[in-house]
Every structure is written in structure tokens, then in C-alpha cells.
């Protein structure tokens, strides 16, 4: 197989914690989705890192916040892997990946940043995200931070990948009606209102507190924070909460539910990706749609169509 040679070339340096080999291994799983699981099963097992998902609309300050959080983790000598996802063009497949620009001050000794393009996946991540997380876990980070594309209300895939989810919001990003909508507002474990120095911040925070009514949800320890990432305000409390949230996930066994949910989603995502490739192979004419459907089902079920 094509990937095996590349794999054999890099596996020793990967085990010796060479960053270049890690980068190559991620490319390998990204470019060979069908073989990703075989590749991953040959990698060393390591203790599970805490996977933290950071989502929110474009311009809310996700990258700046990630940068400041990771700076603090790095000072404590923790090893952090960052996956920063940006959108691919639906027309050309190309992508402009610019999140690292706001993470320039991070110490490369303790931090690895990988920019990832969504490659046609909707929901804020990319189809290979589970594989990339596995490769990075095997490499041995203490924490993996996933920053989503940042598109908005239906960007919820991160809930299936991360242990702890932070939703970054900025004041002026809408009224109560936005807060009532399903989707992104439901998936967060904590709500971070960034740019707290803006005049409108207090009103927004009050509205958010009233809408969410978090006092009644002690089990999840969900919480609202007001911070200013750029001015380095309020981040220590967020860091304490992240650790507490992780402990709580294990104490209440909720981590089991989240891992199970992740496995189901991963399987679904693999099937859909395979289906998507199969559809792309067909020359689709409108009048042949029913025939196409039958052919696809036959192909996927090994000849048995139960229409």
C-alpha cells in the first residue's frame, strides 16, 4: 500500500516525539481516509489528553483566546496540541488558513499548531477530525484544543469530538431571540463573553444569564464568564473551570456517555464520507436519480437492495 512506505519512514521519529514526523503523520491520515484506522492502530497508545473544543462566530476572538489560554498552559510546562479549522472553498477546494497569525507568541517547545481545512465537511470541523485527534493523542499531548471554523448557529460537530466545549461570544452578537435558538447555544459547557471591556458587555451578560438560567444545571457545572482575551482578563478563572469540568466528567461518569456518542458519530461520519465519494463517482443526470439510488444501495449492501 502507498501509505505504508511513508508510515515506515516516519514512525520511529514519531515515537521519538519529532514534530516533523507528527506533521507528516497527520497529513497521512488526512489524505488516506480509507486507511486512517489501519494507520492509527499501529501507533503507540498514550494516556487520553483532555480534548477542549472552542467554538463561536467569526470575529468573537476564538484564536486570541486560544493563544492566551495556551500561553498559560505552556508556562506550566504542559504540552498542548492545537487544531485550528478553517473553511475550504466549495468551488475550488482551496482554503486560506489564517488562525496561527494570532498565536504567534506561543512557545514552540510546548505547543504544536496544525491548521486544517474543512474539505467539504459542514458543522465546523473536517471529516478527518477524529483521526487527527487520535494521532495527536498518540503523540502525547496533555491537552488538545480544537478551534472550529466559526460559521455560526449550526456549527455543532465539535460536541461529538471534544470532552469540554467553550462557546466564545462577543457582546452585540444579537438579542435574546438568538439565545433561544437551538444549535450552538445548547452544546456549550461554558459560555465565554469576550471583549468584556466593550460598553454593551454588561447588558449582554445579564441577558445571557437570564436566558440560560444555569443555577438549575449543577450536574454539568455550566458557567458564564466575562473575559477580555486581548487584555488578559478573566482567563485564570476559565482555566480553573476547565480543570474542574474535566474532573466532574469523570466523577459523574458522563465521560463514558461522551465517548460513546463520539464513537457513534465517528462511524456515521465514515459511512457518510464513503457514500459521498461513491456518489461523486457517478455521472448524475436528473432523470436517472432513482436508478442512481438503487445502484448506490446495491453497491453499498453488496447487491441486496431492500427498497
Amino acid at each position, binding site marked *: 500500500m502507498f501509505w505504508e512506505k511513508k508510515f515506515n519512514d516516519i514512525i520511529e521519529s514519531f515515537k521519538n516525539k519529532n514534530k*516533523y514526523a507528527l*506533521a507528516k503523520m497527520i497529513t497521512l491520515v488526512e489524505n488516506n*481516509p480509507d486507511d486512517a484506522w489501519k494507520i492509527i492502530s499501529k501507533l503507540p497508545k498514550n494516556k487520553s489528553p483532555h480534548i477542549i473544543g472552542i467554538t463561536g462566530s467569526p470575529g468573537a476572538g476564538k484564536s486570541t483566546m486560544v493563544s492566551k489560554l495556551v500561553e498559560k498552559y505552556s508556562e506550566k510546562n504542559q504540552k498542548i496540541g492545537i487544531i485550528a479549522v478553517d473553511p*475550504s472553498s466549495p468551488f475550488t477546494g482551496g482554503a*486560506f*488558513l489564517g488562525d*496561527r497569525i494570532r498565536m504567534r507568541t506561543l512557545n514552540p517547545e510546548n505547543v504544536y*499548531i496544525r491548521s486544517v*481545512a474543512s474539505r467539504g465537511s459542514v458543522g465546523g470541523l473536517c471529516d478527518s477530525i477524529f483521526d487527527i485527534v487520535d494521532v495527536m493523542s498518540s503523540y502525547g499531548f496533555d491537552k488538545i484544543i480544537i478551534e472550529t471554523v466559526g460559521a455560526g448557529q449550526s456549527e455543532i460537530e465539535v460536541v461529538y469530538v471534544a470532552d469540554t466545549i467553550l462557546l466564545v461570544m462577543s457582546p452585540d452578537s444579537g438579542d435574546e431571540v438568538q439565545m433561544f435558538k437551538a444549535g450552538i447555544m445548547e452544546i456549550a459547557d461554558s459560555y465565554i463573553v469576550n471583549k468584556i471591556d466593550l460598553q454593551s458587555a454588561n447588558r449582554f451578560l445579564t441577558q445571557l444569564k437570564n436566558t440560560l438560567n444555569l443555577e438549575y444545571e449543577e450536574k454539568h457545572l455550566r458557567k458564564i464568564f466575562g473575559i477580555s482575551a486581548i487584555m488578559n482578563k478573566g482567563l485564570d478563572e476559565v482555566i480553573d473551570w476547565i480543570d474542574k469540568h474535566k474532573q466532574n466528567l469523570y466523577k459523574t461518569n458522563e465521560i463514558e456517555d461522551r465517548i460513546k456518542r463520539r464513537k457513534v458519530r465517528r462511524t456515521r461520519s465514515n459511512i457518510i464520507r464513503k457514500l459521498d465519494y461513491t456518489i461523486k463517482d457517478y455521472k448524475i443526470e436528473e432523470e436517472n436519480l432513482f436508478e442512481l439510488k438503487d445502484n448506490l444501495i446495491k453497491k453499498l449492501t453488496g447487491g441486496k437492495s431492500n427498497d
Partner: protein
Amino acid sequence: MDRRIRVVIGKPGLDGHDRGAKVVSRALRDAGMEVIYTGIRQTPSEIIETALEEDADIIGLSILSGAHIRLCEKVIEIMKEKGLDNVPLFLGGIIPENDIPQLKKIGVTEVFGPGTSLNLISTRVKEIVLGKEV
């Protein structure tokens, strides 16, 4: 194989004019590549560190300050040190014609001067990356 060409575009040195770097990044994006832009005022080591972490297939630098030879020498020195010598390097910006032979001699694969069409840049970048593997 679901391969995409990954390009790191760097802006080394102290000049902060990055319109050209951004326009080229956008053109490469529109030609179907995944472009990682490092931002302005980066040191050669920072750019190489990025190329390494991002597993770049090719690195592009934009230099307008006149320091292109010195900066490219430094970048290529670090690339060798880090084992990135097989990654091609291209250059754009204000580069006098006379300097091109020397730049190619020290290891720059291609130089695109002012006025080069974006189409030509993206076609050449693809050729360089895909040609390398054949």
C-alpha cells in the same frame, strides 16, 4: 488519496507591506490549494517552524525590503538544518532581475517579479510540487 497541496506563505523581515503576500495567497486558494499565511514581520526560523508544523509542500516568501538575498540564505540554511531541504522555496516581491541567478544558485526554485500574472504563479507552484513527486 484525497491530496491537497499545502503552501506556507511567509513574510520575513521588517517591512510590513503584505498586500502582495495576501493577493498571492488568495490566488493559490482559488487554484485549489490550502494556504497557510504566517503574517508579517516573521523571522526565518519562525517561518520554517510553521512550514514544519504544517507539513508544507512548498514555501513562498514575499520580500520587498531589498534584503532578499540575505533573508533567503538564512531561510535555506535553517531549512537544511531542520531537514526541510526537499521542500521547494519560491520568492516574490521587489526582486531585481540581476539577483535572480544568485537566488537560484543558493537554492530558490522560482522567483516571481512584480507584474507576474496570478495564473502563472499558481500554475508554476502546482508544477513544482507535483513535478517533485514524479
